[in-house]
């Protein structure tokens, strides 16, 4: 599904990713954990195609397609979805308007016709109900005045509607209380399928109690330094990242 080979990335002459290798298979939920500044968010932005990042070496393949040669919207059409750590506010643009514009844009790139309004509303209502979202929220401008938890739910709602094949969750648990964490996690779990892969980026084990990963990778100094099963997350929770910091010092 996703194959990253020897990825080297810098921003403003500062090297962030240092020969990163990672493979995520179809149907797999891969967690990436690591201390602050290890390059986790950079990795998610580079996969999604944010400007400002200079890729010096390596490649990112999604189902064999070279993502690095594609614009962000083309990558989205190819199936990449990034649930942002800090979702952006778009003043004056209703949430429904935004959802419809995004869904139709992706349908168009797949050569499908526009969604009819009744179908659209039906789909949104069904997905919003699962996330226990307040309908008034959908009437407001996108993310404007939303609480942290509401913003994260809006991200998962978009993920559910756009049906991407490769989902990146960037610190989705930050800013969530226990109830919101449960609802958001259930939303994600409902989307798990043999055809879809997830890259879950987090600092803490607690999210992984809800979204149980198949694999856990530890990121440090811009590369993956250790990989294992879900038990690796528990080990990190117990010991922290101190081991990795020391190994670097040594």
């Amino acid at each position, binding site marked *: 599904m996703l194959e990253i080979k020897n990825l080297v990335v810098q921003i403003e002459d500062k090297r962030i990713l240092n020969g990163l290798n990672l493979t995520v298979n179809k149907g797999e939920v891969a967690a990436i954990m690591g201390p602050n500044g290890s390059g986790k968010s950079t990795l998610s932005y580079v996969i999604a195609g*944010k400007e400002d990042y200079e890729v010096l070496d390596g490649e990112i393949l999604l189902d064999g397609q070279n993502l690095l040669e594609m614009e962000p919207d083309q990558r989205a059409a190819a199936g990449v979805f990034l649930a942002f750590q800090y979702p952006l506010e778009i003043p004056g643009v209703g949430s429904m308007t935004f959802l419809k514009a995004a869904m139709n*844009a992706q349908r168009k790139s797949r050569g499908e016709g526009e969604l009819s309004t009744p179908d659209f509303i039906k789909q949104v209502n069904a997905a919003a109900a699962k996330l226990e979202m307040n309908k008034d929220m959908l009437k407001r401008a996108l993310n404007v005045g939303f609480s942290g938890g509401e913003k994260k739910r809006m991200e998962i709602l978009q993920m559910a509607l756009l049906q991407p094949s490769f989902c990146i969750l960037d610190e989705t648990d930050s800013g969530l209380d226990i109830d919101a964490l449960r609802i958001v996690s259930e939303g994600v779990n409902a989307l798990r399928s043999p055809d879809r892969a997830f890259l879950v980026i987090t600092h803490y084990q607690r999210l992984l109690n809800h979204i149980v990963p198949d694999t856990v990778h530890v990121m440090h100094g811009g590369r993956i330094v250790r990989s294992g099963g879900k038990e690796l997350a528990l080990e990190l929770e117990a010991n922290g990242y101190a081991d990795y910091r020391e190994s670097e010092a040594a």
Partner: protein
Amino acid sequence: MPAVQETIDQVRSIDVDQYKYGFETEVEMEKSPKGLSEDVIRFISAKKGEPEWMLQWRLDAYKRWLTMTEPSWARVSYDKIDYNDIYYYAAPKKNPAPKSLDEVDPEILKTYEKLGIPLREQEILAGVEPERRVAVDAVFDSVSVATTFKEELAKAGVIFMPISEAIREYPDLVKQYLGTVVPVTDNFFATLNSAVFTDGSFVYIPPGVRCPMELSTYFRINEKNTGQFERTLIIADKGSYVSYLEGCTAPKRDENQLHAAVVELIALDDAEIKYSTVQNWYPGDAEGRGGIYNFVTKRGDCRGKNSVITWTQVETGSAITWKYPSCILRGDNSRGEFYSIAVSNGMQQVDSGTKMIHLGKNTTSRIISKGIAAGKSENTYRGLVSAHRKATGARNFTNCDSLLIGNQCGAHTVPYIESKNATAVFEHEATTSKISEDQMFYCQQRGLSEEEATALIVNGFVKDVLQQLPMEFAVEAQKLISISLEGSVG
């Protein structure tokens, strides 16, 4: 939002050339001698078959104008205008005063059709879809070429006709109101207009009548080296209501053309006038060659108690815009509103805003201005809110937002606030923002192209104002804004 999709399609269908109204119509024209003199004014007045008092009015204005100097306080710069290098009158040779559409030169009808204003269909559709009918007055250079729905409006007692016709047919009404809101001596451009104005619309709504349809005037400058000096006068008598829309376009030309219009609105007791403008004069090319100089004086007088005047404008065209649609809130409890979207791209210069002059008691006003600057353009909001000594309880709310696209453009806000009354409450809010790269990335991550993302964000920014426009025009305006900003990102 289907309009976004339409916008994108529209933008794509336009190649290199973004201004789709830039074509020229081949019709034989009759023109006045070039330049300005008493003789030229006599020529215009005679062409219009005007009574002596009107000619005298023009000549007085001309004498006054000769003593005036061009204003220089606006934040715009341009080469000196040679007022003797302009034709002040140009009319299609064939039948300059047609009685019905059948007499109109087919080339001209085709022009309006190309512009999306099918005058013929407007009449044919009459009665089929009554709630969407719009009566249109089409002005081609210096003359009105067609006015639709005249008879039906007349049944309601509404007068809607070219002002040159009204001067002949309703001299008393015209005499009573012309120049009472924008005096002949008001300012350099208004005085020039008073001397040489050629055509424009005249509207009178009798007491208690709610005008049965939208009224619209479509202005087209076609002829080279021609100025357009239209004059519009709208009177809403006691308890009446009218909604009026004007649209404007011009062919692409390398030289600049002058447009100096005067619009006067008068609302008597309990009357309401809604005046909407979609201004899309040719803005000039990317290097700033050509384009219309748009120096316009628009003013409404809320003369009666409880009267309301609303200005809504979507300004995307012109090389230079100098325009401040204003309200004189004379009647007690009267209300003035100004909603504006001013888009500038390329080398365009916009200095626009409003004046709300509170004279009566408990008068209220509201100003919502959205400026969008892209390319190397300069976009200035200039507004005055003032309260007279007797204007107890005056209230104003002003909100000016500017959006910058790219980093070579400028947005400026110049508010003037004067209060001579301690009970007046004036509020002013202003923001300047840029479309952030993060917002763009977020939209693109969801599958929207760069153009779609820009259109969506800009439409969100101007939403409050678009809502004020009649439905069909709001969609049109939304498209226009996106087209104007084509190529401004990246």
